[in-house]
């Protein structure tokens, strides 16, 4: 009886493994095809050859040159890192206030903050565009950076607040007795103890800004100000029937995200789980 249960459990595990392996295969096909296509000649890509006879590394140089890659890369890095800095600093400070300090209307304000997560960005998009236009900020990077410094994302604030709540308040009390101010406690206790959570926010912010398309599409017009997402879209509308070049350019732009994901996936998983399971 016991043995039959054990073997049936074993068969069950085996079956699950086989199905998951099949799933892994399906998930990887698009990326594998992207890589091989990016190394094919035009004729090989057209005729759907399985593998390139000789890898055409020159495709990468051709594609990046044709899409003005380097200028767009500089713009994207500038926007992404400034917005990331803004997200981490402002969201951490706000989350500190909501999790550690007592002040009138704190809890109702936090409920409002949570409620703003339900508001689709499209509702505020047009008036925000008009605001930035009145400031003369259209076709500058400011609309893509400044909001990040002003609380930026309710999701990040929520995530950091959840994390700060797990830090024992005795540490604050001890520091206060030593004469530490509220901001001193934030910088000397909360920030050093929250590095993993801050890194999680930084990584989510990086991914968002690196891949953002609608923001740059609305605000940036001049060719020299375009981000990678815009440059890639322009490139695709001119070279749509050159799959080998398109795949080379797309792969290069995806690469930082793939690399960050592989090295820091536990932070992404933690961030998702904090908001999804415990939230």
């Amino acid at each position, binding site marked *: 009886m016991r043995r039959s249960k054990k073997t049936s459990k074993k068969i069950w595990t085996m079956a*699950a493994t086989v*199905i998951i392996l099949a799933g892994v295969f399906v*998930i990887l096909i698009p990326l594998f095809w992207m890589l091989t296509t990016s190394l094919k000649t035009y004729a090989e890509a057209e005729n759907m050859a399985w593998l390139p006879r000789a890898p055409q590394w020159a495709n990468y140089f051709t594609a990046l040159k044709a899409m003005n890659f380097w200028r767009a890369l500089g713009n994207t890095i500038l926007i992404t890192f400034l917005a990331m800095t803004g997200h981490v600093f402002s969201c951490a400070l706000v989350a500190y*206030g909501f999790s550690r300090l007592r002040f009138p209307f704190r809890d109702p304000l936090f409920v409002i903050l949570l409620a703003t997560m*339900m508001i689709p960005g499209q509702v505020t998009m*047009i008036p925000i565009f008009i605001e930035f236009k009145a400031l003369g900020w259209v076709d500058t990077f400011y609309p893509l950076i400044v909001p990040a410094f002003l609380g930026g994302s309710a999701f990040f604030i929520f995530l950091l607040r959840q994390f700060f709540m797990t830090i024992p308040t005795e540490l604050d009390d001890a520091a206060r007795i030593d004469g530490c101010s509220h901001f001193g406690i934030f910088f000397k206790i909360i920030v050093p103890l929250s590095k993993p959570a801050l890194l999680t926010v930084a990584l989510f912010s990086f991914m968002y800004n690196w891949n953002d398309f*609608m923001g740059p599409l609305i605000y940036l017009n001049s060719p020299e100000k375009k981000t990678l997402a815009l440059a*890639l879209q322009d490139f695709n509308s001119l070279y749509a029937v050159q799959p080998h070049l398109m795949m080379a350019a797309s792969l290069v732009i995806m690469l930082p995200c793939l690399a960050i994901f592989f090295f820091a996936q536990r932070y992404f*998983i933690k961030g*998702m789980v904090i908001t999804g399971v415990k939230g």
Partner: protein
Amino acid sequence: MKLGARRGETLSGYLTISPWLLGFLAFIIGPILASLLLSFMKWDIITPPAFMGMGNYKKLIEDPLLYQSLKVTFIYTIIAVPLNLGFGLLVAILMNQGVKGINIFRTIFYMPAILSGVAVAILWQKIFNPHFGVLNPILKGLRILPVLELIRSPVTWLYSEFWALPAFIVMNLWAVGGAMIIYLAALQGIPTHLYESADIDGASVWTKFRHITLPMLSPVILFNLIMGIIGSFQVFTTSYVMTGGGPNNATLFYVLNLYRQAFQYHRMGYGCALAWVLFIIIIGFSLIILKTSSGWVYYAGARRGR
């Protein structure tokens, strides 16, 4: 002294949250009110705005593009969200069966969920291409393509009015790992003693799934459901890049239509009216789901059916 400390804390408190308060006024509550006001006006940005009462909303009711975009978005949501939720749950449960190498498999499944934007849209645009894309040869090899051709031929995906929207649903399934990762964490949080006592009672696999796993997962299913619906109502980049809403508006998602009305045709007032309709639809859906959820979502430690 004590009063002073309290006052100091209030001041510090408001100082710390001031970035968000400013952002809230400038980028949320201000724009929401402005958006409502603008939805009753006609404005092309260049000439001064003119009040036109319910004009935008009257136009909206007669706009075939609105109905087309609603139809596309609803069909997509109704099919893609449950498929994603179901497959995500299936994969998570399979992974939780003591499969070896779970960390590697989890990484691979989760990877597409963190990839987004133009590069992914272009990748799938090429995959679906009937001349050089990789999908149709694979489907042909698996003998699936002839079956699809029976339904509607030719199967040219993004070039076909019939197959373009299904292509978006297939693409969405690639990112099933996003839902999976949350299910998996929740599955690992279910106390094993629940299953052990069920085993003692001789419960079948199905009974355990139906009466332990599903109820324990229900809060997470609710979360994934609401996030999935909100996400699918906001599809933009993929439709802009892959099809531009075509062919013949077959993939004209709601936000793509909104973007065009506001930023290509410069109908700011009309765009705001469209945005408000979207807002009301999303709020409505969320409220209906939350209201009905008390019947099927089980919170450990809380009584059922409140």
